[in-house]
């Protein structure tokens, strides 16, 4: 029997009792719609988390001096050794390190002509721009060589441009940081406010040696210290492996005896965010599970009505067998009916799911992420329910003895 014929006769059988078919479908419709909404919700939450992670730098490890705390009690004794610019240089040689960023910070006054402006100074190395994923929208950022030689070049944020060079091209302009003259070589891309309300475009970025030696002022004991180091792991390296390799390397470099605890800490921002989102995900899985239960109940309804249908049409089955239908033909007929029933319910459910997700995104503060994949999966779930719950009634029909079926009443 041809496939199209099978579908046509299934539709014919189902439209023989439209109300009953619709009521049976209702369970599937509700099930599929809720599965779809829950999956969209889950995907939305996940996308939000991923966006958060990538904004923070998914491949970034942060090193801070200080003992590892366990149960709130400091394990290490005494002040821990800070990191230095030398650490930045050696870390860059590790195979899994793509870029390294270390900074010194301070408040400074920027002066151009008659204008004085209080701003933030960041002294850093070129790795900063790569690790923070920042670019100069005008001009360029400074080079490794400029950083090493202590060149008097500055990359400035948009707020500084506005205060000092309003209306004129800032590139090549000279201004003073405290009393040190520097030349603008680049303007940093816009970053907006930080989550603490700080203006991140109000910043002057200088090579670390320039900032340290000429502006902040080198001190014999604090020379070359950086408060923390951020390491960007190269593509293709596993973060967990990189983290443990980095820890091992730093223990060796800082001469920590085996068994003694670290006097520094390594943070993985992605881990942090993921841990925070774990509860949210558990909730999502629970909701998806409940939607699945709804679909399952819908499937039981389909099985029930298919069993009724097989019983009602026993004589018809007997007749078809007498006319030459094989067991597999009868089986295919009822399976097709169940799948068409569930497939139609699935289509309506998907449409309803789209609507529901749209309403939820509009009215509540849910982030909904609907994809082709989710749509196909929801629809596929409905079709699978059709096959699964249609199988038993269909097999029952196929196994009828022709003469018993024909004489049934």
């Amino acid at each position: 029997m041809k496939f199209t014929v099978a579908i046509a006769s299934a539709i014919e059988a189902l439209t023989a009792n439209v109300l009953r078919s619709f009521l049976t479908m209702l369970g599937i419709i509700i099930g599929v719609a809720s599965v779809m909404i829950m999956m969209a919700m889950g995907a939305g939450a996940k996308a939000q988390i991923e966006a958060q992670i990538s904004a923070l730098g998914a491949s970034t490890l942060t090193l801070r001096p200080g003992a590892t705390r366990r149960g709130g009690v400091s394990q290490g004794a005494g002040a821990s050794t800070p990191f230095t610019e030398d650490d930045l240089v050696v870390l860059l040689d590790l195979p899994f390190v793509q870029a390294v960023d270390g900074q010194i910070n301070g408040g400074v006054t920027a002066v151009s002509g008659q204008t004085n402006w209080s701003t933030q100074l960041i002294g850093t190395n070129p790795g900063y721009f790569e690790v923070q994923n920042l670019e100069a929208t005008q001009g360029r950022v400074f080079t490794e060589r400029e950083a090493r030689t202590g060149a008097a070049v500055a990359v400035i944020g948009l707020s500084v441009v506005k205060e000092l060079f309003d209306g004129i091209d800032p590139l090549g302009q000279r201004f003073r940081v405290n009393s040190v003259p520097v030349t603008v070589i680049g303007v940093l891309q816009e970053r907006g406010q930080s989550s603490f309300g700080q203006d991140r475009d109000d910043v002057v970025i200088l090579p670390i040696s320039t900032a340290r030696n000429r502006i902040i002022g080198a001190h014999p004991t604090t020379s070359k210290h950086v408060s923390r180091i951020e390491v960007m792991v190269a593509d293709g390296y596993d973060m967990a492996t990189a983290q443990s390799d980095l820890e091992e390397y730093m223990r060796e470099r800082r001469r920590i005896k085996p068994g003694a605890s670290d006097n520094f800490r390594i943070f993985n921002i992605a881990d942090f965010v993921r841990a925070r989102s774990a509860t949210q995900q558990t909730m999502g899985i629970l909701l998806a599970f409940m939607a699945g239960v709804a679909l399952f109940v819908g499937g039981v309804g389909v099985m029930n009505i298919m069993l009724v249908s097989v019983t009602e049409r026993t004589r018809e089955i007997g007749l078809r067998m007498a006319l030459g239908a094989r067991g597999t033909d009868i089986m295919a007929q009822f399976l097709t009916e169940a799948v068409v029933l569930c497939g139609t319910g699935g289509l309506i459910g998907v449409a309803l799911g789209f609507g529901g997700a749209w309403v939820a995104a509009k009215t509540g503060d849910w982030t909904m992420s609907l994809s082709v994949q989710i749509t196909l999966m929801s629809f596929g779930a409905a079709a699978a329910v059709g096959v699964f719950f249609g199988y038993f009634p269909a097999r029952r029909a196929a196994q009828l003895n022709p003469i018993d079926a024909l004489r049934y009443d």
Partner: protein
Amino acid sequence: MAQNPYIIEAHQLTKIYTMGDQQVHALRGVDLAIERGEFTAIMGPSGSGKSTLMNLIGALDQPSGGELLIEGHALSTMNGAQLADLRNRTLGFVFQQFNLLPRADALQNVKLPLRYARHDIGDADARSRECLKLVGLEGRMDHRPAQLSGGQQQRVAIARALANRPQIILADEPTGALDTKTSEDIMKLLVELNASGITIILVTHEPEVAAFASRQIHFRDGLIESDERSGS
């Protein structure tokens, strides 16, 4: 192997129905051979086993003992799919209660067995129209069973039995629900079909109906009581 003149052979065929602890011996060892092209009428009192025999020949039920051969093939050696194909291709059924699908029109009812055909049937639509024309219903193709008289319904059923060009037509009381005049028309149709080479076995209670056949078999208590060929 020599040419086998018998299209149907039954050897010591028995059928026992078991209902609880009670056993009904519907057939008690029937020996029967039917030649290709014969028109056989089976008669006998109610409960004598006529329908039981028809169901066995039609491969709708399994015998309790003995052997049944159709076109030389033993049914006991065939699996479910082979039996289905036998019913589809070699056999055509005509029932007392017509057994048409009530929601389908005449043409769709006739097409039904073609749906299950595994062999090449050509244009199913043209073939079904041809069969309806043969039974004189070319003007009623789009009528549903409820819109047809009893005789017309039985004609649709005969057209359906013919759709796959069977070798054998099995008709269990095909005129049982029809009046005398209509019965006669149906019988004339069957005689025509028999003349075209189709082997026909018919069960009936009416001697006038049986008279159309070339061979009359009488059943009693699950056994053949008499078997006569009319001279014609």
